[in-house]
């Protein structure tokens, strides 16, 4: 089981890579969303907010989410570090995402563009 700190680090790595990618920021200029990331095997919540292409990241729950990403701590850390693609746990039911299908797909696109195949 990963720790809250490890999930935080994975999200920091994800956030940093996003912010360094100018093209990605441009692509998401009109995609303003709040993404809540919750671990279901320990007390851990993080919020990613996208506004006008910029991503901000905070620990805990902030505001009403458009997307809620729920999984075990290991999967969350692996996913945001880019060790696994979100599709794998999603298709075997380990990862649950609450939100619109288009938003779920967009989040996967972002992950793909940050971490590659």
């Amino acid at each position, binding site marked *: 089981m990963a720790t809250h700190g490890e999930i935080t680090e994975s999200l920091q790595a994800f956030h940093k890579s996003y912010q360094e990618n100018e093209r990605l920021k441009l692509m998401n200029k009109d995609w303003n969303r709040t993404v809540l990331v919750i671990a279901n095997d320990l007390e851990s919540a993080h919020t990613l907010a996208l506004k006008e292409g910029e991503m901000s990241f905070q620990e805990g729950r902030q505001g009403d989410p458009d997307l809620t990403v729920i999984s075990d701590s290991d999967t969350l850390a692996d996913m945001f570090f880019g060790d696994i*693609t979100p599709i794998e746990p999603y298709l075997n039911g380990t990862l*649950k995402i609450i939100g619109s299908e288009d938003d779920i797909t967009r989040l996967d696109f972002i992950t793909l563009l940050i971490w590659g195949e």
Partner: protein
Amino acid sequence: MQLKRVLTLRTVVATSAGLTLATSSFVAAAQVAGFMAGDSAWLSILVSGVLCLLAAACFSELNSILPSAAGIRLYLGKAFGDKVALTFSILYMLVVMGVVGAESFVLAKIFNYTIPQVAPVIWITVMLAIVTLLNIRGIKLAGRFQDIVTYGVIVSVILLSLWGLKQVNFHLVAPLAVGGASNFIQAVAVGIFLFVGFEWVTPLAEEVTDSRIITRGMFIAVGIVCIVYALFTAAMTANVARDVFIHSPIPQVLFAQKVLGKVGLVWILLICLSCSFGTFNAGLLSVSRFFYATAREHALPPVFSRISMRFMTPWVSIIAVFVVGYAFSLVILYTGRYLVLVDMAAAAESIIYVLSAAALLVLRKKMADAPRSFKVPFGPVIPVLTMLIFAVLAVMAIATDPVIALWMVAGLVVIGLYVVYVVPRIKEKYKVKRSSRRDGRPIL
């Protein structure tokens, strides 16, 4: 969990019904009528609809156990393992592309009937190219407008049918004369095509606050579609000669023109365009996203996960669907065997229902403690009945033409070999590539 944007029952019903309403469905309805004696086609459509309700009940429970946009892929994977799930998902997606091909063929024939100067092959090319470009650019109809279009089509077909029935002062003469058990079962089997896609609404599970809305939506949609096609078939058989509608790829046009002349022709053209746009869009969107997701889980070459940086769409997968759908259309156009795809889709849909009912029985044991908002009543009775009935219907749909059996078996063998021998190699290649990149991750 509070979502900012949630779908209403109205949209769920419109989505489920809209996915089943296709231009090629009218051809299937004519084929159903062709199997039946007298004016009893409505009966086989009603039975097909009721049987689809059994499958809808199974999907509802599966959706309440595993509410996910991954839908059938996840249900089958959890129940039977990934290889089975992947094999049947690919087969299903190929059939969906076949339906896109059949749909474009029928619509091209309608355009060609209206404007004979332009050859069907040009219509097919232009239509598929337009829908592909719209998909690559990520252009979609707004939810509310899509709802209006779907309900507009439903009301239009009902009004046109009632007008047609009034024209001939219709009254049922032999509503129960089915013309033999074998014909009746075959009509019901092909009738399943009329409902193909109603369960595609389950991927919306993550967009509703209460998964029971999906259940209610599917049931209402199947009921509405049942009424629409039963009325249409009754009106068509009463107005158009049997020999004519059975052998025509455009029976709906012949019917509309007979009852309302030029107005009817324009009206049915608009109905068919609306239906086909929905079918093309749903087909292209779902299959291209499936290709993309399959490439992302390393079961297809990575090229299929390429996305357009400008439009944020999986352009390679969309073009792949266009190519396969276009190839299907051309094959149908030059062989004229459009009914093969209709029957094949009916058979594939029945097989998916069999597998889903079986998956439900397995998951009831494997995930006995999983919370669920809906449970099919009477224990295993309905899932077992669903399995048995749809197994028979799949066989009957295949039996309409030996070519269907040949294609389906060949398809399953090729896909099965791909899943067993090629997929593990792609996954292995990815693992090696990924392990060489792990160095960046901090060791905690």
